[in-house]
């Protein structure tokens, strides 16, 4: 296919970024905003067409006679050539997941652009905001279409940077600055792992290219056989390190701490970056490398464990938070953990690697309904000017659109049929059960928790009591804000019926989804019970929650303080890194190293002061020294030479 369209998909956001970034402050807010939105809109159309062509044109570039979907690099320019084998290329790889991601990213991004027109109206630095949004969209698109792991790393970094800039958008707010710094550094730390992983893999496979790596990993990584490092085979090390990069971006425990703070950014940004797109980059990464992972099952097991733990942890914490964005943030963490687990439990021999498909499916649906939820939350915050649900309640009368869409979102995430979340989650649970009952039960439980805390949130916002909103009553936002909600809500309703397996499987073979009713019923039952519980506790103002809180005081406080992870990090960074490493080093440098250098000078001066007596000014001493010197000269030679 011709390269113009894919090229434009990347070029338009980049162009927008440069345009708005360099000349933004010369433009009016409206112009800048609409420029950005239109640009994104075009990108959206192009992305849809590209995806459509990929899936439905049936050209032999994309699907072979055997009905396998192929990976096709539309273009692949050499960017930097290390050695004749190791080359960084900038390319555009079309395959099921990248096409799917194109759709997701452009959709959400466009929604957010549109939404922000209303939400950010009148903000200082409006143009800057849109410039950064475009930058982010560009980087994210570049990330998903990467043809080689290094291109992915490049855009990975760019995504991180733009996320940094957007979190710190309100740069005069110290908390925002701190949050952005935290986000960047934590993910940077994870990226270090990613980088080392890349180095290791490329050292043994001597290629960066995804297609080459994944087409037949056994032979590519044959050279790693037998080479162990600290008890693990180097391949495991490489894969785990790469996954570490994923953990950073996807906020897996213990590298999740940046995500809740990242909510300091404007809410649409949270919807775009920290719910729908960037945070799933880790999942996407593992999915990309999946064929390599299944060579090394131990790595996959690690992935599973990390995912499972995170899922439970985040779900528990989400039950206790009062800041609605934080609740959503933790639910995001938990949902991404679902995807990670589902990749971890995926095995090629079972239903064409059902877990892989499931996780991608969930990624897709989750993007939609989580964005929906966040935008809804945005609307709420916009209305009541507070992040805490304690300041809300009974809003269903005032904000019908928001209410309905939010409800749909909650149902979707809770996994109630026929909403999108149900289908994807069901596939995940099936895969989990197939892998081992433990994971199945575990994840079902987490699913129940999800339903509970989401409805807790829903009831506290829209029902519970009816506080006095004073002179101005909350109301739905302008149409620019409502429209995205409606659209996303619709998608969340119908997305589940997409026959996802026909499009996305790990090896391109078509796979017909069929619900495993045992699993499905259990999960539905669990979810309904959880919702019922939530209804009992939160539908009307009552004392049950407080009583329960007091009943499980310890657990509750721990969960409320997110199990003290931040404190741990603060301790490590400030106490250990700064006070026990950096300061001593700086001191050592100033006093020991520098002191030594200075001491040369001081010693010289000291010596010259000491020997000044030699020049006593008395001529007799002069000749005495003279004679002794001459004799010593002779004597020394007599002694040493002869």
């Amino acid at each position, binding site marked *: 296919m011709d390269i113009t369209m894919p090229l434009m998909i990347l070029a338009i956001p980049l162009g927008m970024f440069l345009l708005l970034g360099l000349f933004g402050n010369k433009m009016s807010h409206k112009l800048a905003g609409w420029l950005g939105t239109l640009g994104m809109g075009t990108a959206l159309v192009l992305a849809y067409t590209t995806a459509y062509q990929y899936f439905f044109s049936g050209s032999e570039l994309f699907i072979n006679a055997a009905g396998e979907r192929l990976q096709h690099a539309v273009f692949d320019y050499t960017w930097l050539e290390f050695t004749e084998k190791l080359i960084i290329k900038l390319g555009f790889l079309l395959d099921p997941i990248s096409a799917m991601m194109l759709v997701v990213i452009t959709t959400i991004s466009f929604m957010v652009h549109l939404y922000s027109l209303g939400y950010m109206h009148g903000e200082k630095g409006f143009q800057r905001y849109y410039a950064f949004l475009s930058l982010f969209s560009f980087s994210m698109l570049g990330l998903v279409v990467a043809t080689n792991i290094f291109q992915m790393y490049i855009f990975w970094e760019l995504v991180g940077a733009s996320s940094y800039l957007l979190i710190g958008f309100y740069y005069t707010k110290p908390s925002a600055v701190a949050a952005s710094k935290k986000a960047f550094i934590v993910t940077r730390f994870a990226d270090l792992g990613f980088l080392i992983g890349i180095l290791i893999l490329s050292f043994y496979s001597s290629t960066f290219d995804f297609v080459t790596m994944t087409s037949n990993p056994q032979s590519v990584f044959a050279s790693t056989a037998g080479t162990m490092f600290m008890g693990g085979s180097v391949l495991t090390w490489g894969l785990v390190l790469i996954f570490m990069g994923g953990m950073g971006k996807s906020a897996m425990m213990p590298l999740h701490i940046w995500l809740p703070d990242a909510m300091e950014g404007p809410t649409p940004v949270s919807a775009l970056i920290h719910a729908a797109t960037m945070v799933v980059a880790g999942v996407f990464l593992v999915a990309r490398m999946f064929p390599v992972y299944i060579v090394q099952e131990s790595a996959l097991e690690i992935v599973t464990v990390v995912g499972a733990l995170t899922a439970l942890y985040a779900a528990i914490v989400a039950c206790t938070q009062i800041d609605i964005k934080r609740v959503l943030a933790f639910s995001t963490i938990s949902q991404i953990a679902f995807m990670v687990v589902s990749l971890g439990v995926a095995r090629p021999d079972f239903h064409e690697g059902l877990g892989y498909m499931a996780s991608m499916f969930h990624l897709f649906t989750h993007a939609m309904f989580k964005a929906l939820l966040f935008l809804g939350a945005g609307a709420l915050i916009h209305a009541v000017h507070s992040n805490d649900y304690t300041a809300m309640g009974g809003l269903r009368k005032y904000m019908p659109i928001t209410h309905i869409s939010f409800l749909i979102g909650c149902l979707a995430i809770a996994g109630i049929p026929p909403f999108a979340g149900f289908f994807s989650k069901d596939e995940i649970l099936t895969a989990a059960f197939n892998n081992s009952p433990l994971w199945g039960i575990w994840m079902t439980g987490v699913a129940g928790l999800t339903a509970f805390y989401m409805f807790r949130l829903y009831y506290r916002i829209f029902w519970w009591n009816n506080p006095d909103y004073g002179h101005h009553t909350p109301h739905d936002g302008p149409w620019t804000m409502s429209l995205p909600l409606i659209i996303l809500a619709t998608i969340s309703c119908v997305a589940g019926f997409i026959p996802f397996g026909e499009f996305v499987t790990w090896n391109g073979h078509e796979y017909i989804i069929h619900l495993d009713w045992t699993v499905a019923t259990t999960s539905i039952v669990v979810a309904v019970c959880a919702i019922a519980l939530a209804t009992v506790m939160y539908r009307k103002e009552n004392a049950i929650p407080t009583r329960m809180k007091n009943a499980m005081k310890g657990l509750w406080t721990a969960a409320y303080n997110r199990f003290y992870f931040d404190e741990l990090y603060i301790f490590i960074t400030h106490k250990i890194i700064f006070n026990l490493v950096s300061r001593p080093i700086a001191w050592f440098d100033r006093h020991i190293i520098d002191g030594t250098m200075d001491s040369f000078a001081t010693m010289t001066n000291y010596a010259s002061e000491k020997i*000044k007596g030699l020049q*006593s*000014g008395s001529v*007799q001493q002069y000749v005495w020294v003279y*004679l002794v010197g001459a004799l010593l000269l002779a004597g020394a030679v007599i002694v040493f030479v002869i």
Partner: protein
Amino acid sequence: MELTMLYYIIPSLIMFCCGVYGFITRKNMIAILISLELMLNAVDINFVVFNRFLFPGQMEGMFFTLFAIAIAAAETALAIAIIINLFRVAKNIDVEDVNEMKF
């Protein structure tokens, strides 16, 4: 008895050492000059004796001695002149006092 070279060399060396000793110990510059003369004369004796005993066939040492004596005389004259000058300015010729410049 037979006078070998040593009978001349030893005294001359002793003279030299005396000269050195005098130079280093005496306070009066004139005395120092005298000890310098001692040293120079010791050298002269050396030359003559070496010439006489070791290389009787030639006169090189002798001639050298003559010149050396002349030079020594010149040196002494100059030194005396300078000392007198100093005496004019400083009103004494104690070597201990000419150590204004040091370190």
